[in-house]
């Protein structure tokens, strides 16, 4: 099968698609460049999607949080651990890692939330809950 340049991979966390890189194949584990989620590549028909290999685990959210900060060059402060505990509580009570400071349990508020991915940290210096901070 030829991998076309315009192929995209769908990320179930940020619900966006990113470019399929040359050399990738089914089963490879890659990082979503938009939200930092670790994904196992899976082909379904003509589409590529990423499975969450450690879905709902503490390891998953800790890796995603660290990876996203690394990708965006954001930093944390001393609230990080308490906020991660909040994310873990959201997952236990509401089924996924939604922002611990928001009421709404909808996909756009899965951490890192859509406003954060849309530039809130760059604009405001921090994300809504204060997990990610702009590096000064």
């Amino acid at each position, binding site marked *: 099968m030829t991998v076309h340049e315009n192929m995209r991979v769908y990320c179930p966390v940020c619900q966006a698609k990113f470019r399929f890189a040359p050399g990738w194949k089914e089963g490879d584990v890659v990082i979503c460049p938009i939200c930092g989620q670790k994904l196992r590549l899976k082909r379904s028909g003509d589409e590529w999607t990423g499975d969450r290999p450690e879905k709902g685990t503490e390891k998953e959210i800790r890796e995603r949080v660290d990876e996203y900060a690394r990708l965006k060059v954001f930093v944390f402060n001393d609230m990080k651990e308490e906020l991660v505990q909040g994310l873990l509580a959201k997952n236990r009570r*509401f089924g996924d890692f939604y922002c611990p400071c928001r009421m709404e349990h909808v996909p756009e508020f899965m951490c890192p939330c859509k406003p954060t991915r849309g530039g809130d940290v760059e604009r405001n210096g921090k994300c809504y809950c204060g997990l990610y901070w702009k590096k000064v």
Partner: protein
Amino acid sequence: MSNKPKVYALSTCPYCKRTRRFLDEHKIAYDCIEVDMLDDAKQDEVLEEVEKLTGRRSFPVVIVGKEIIVGHDEDKLKKAFKL
């Protein structure tokens, strides 16, 4: 109606936890409503109440007398409770 201070909080929010810890440490009795743990109908009602009081849906909210404190702010809490 109770005259006790009232705290609106989210069960997962660390700032809400800090506010509650601050009040507990200062032995201040208060009523706390964990908004995210309410059933849907009650939650709508309480959220409307919070929005009416503060103009937004942000937590924690502390009501002490006529004063309304949004967010965890120890200086404002100290002032409101004369600590």
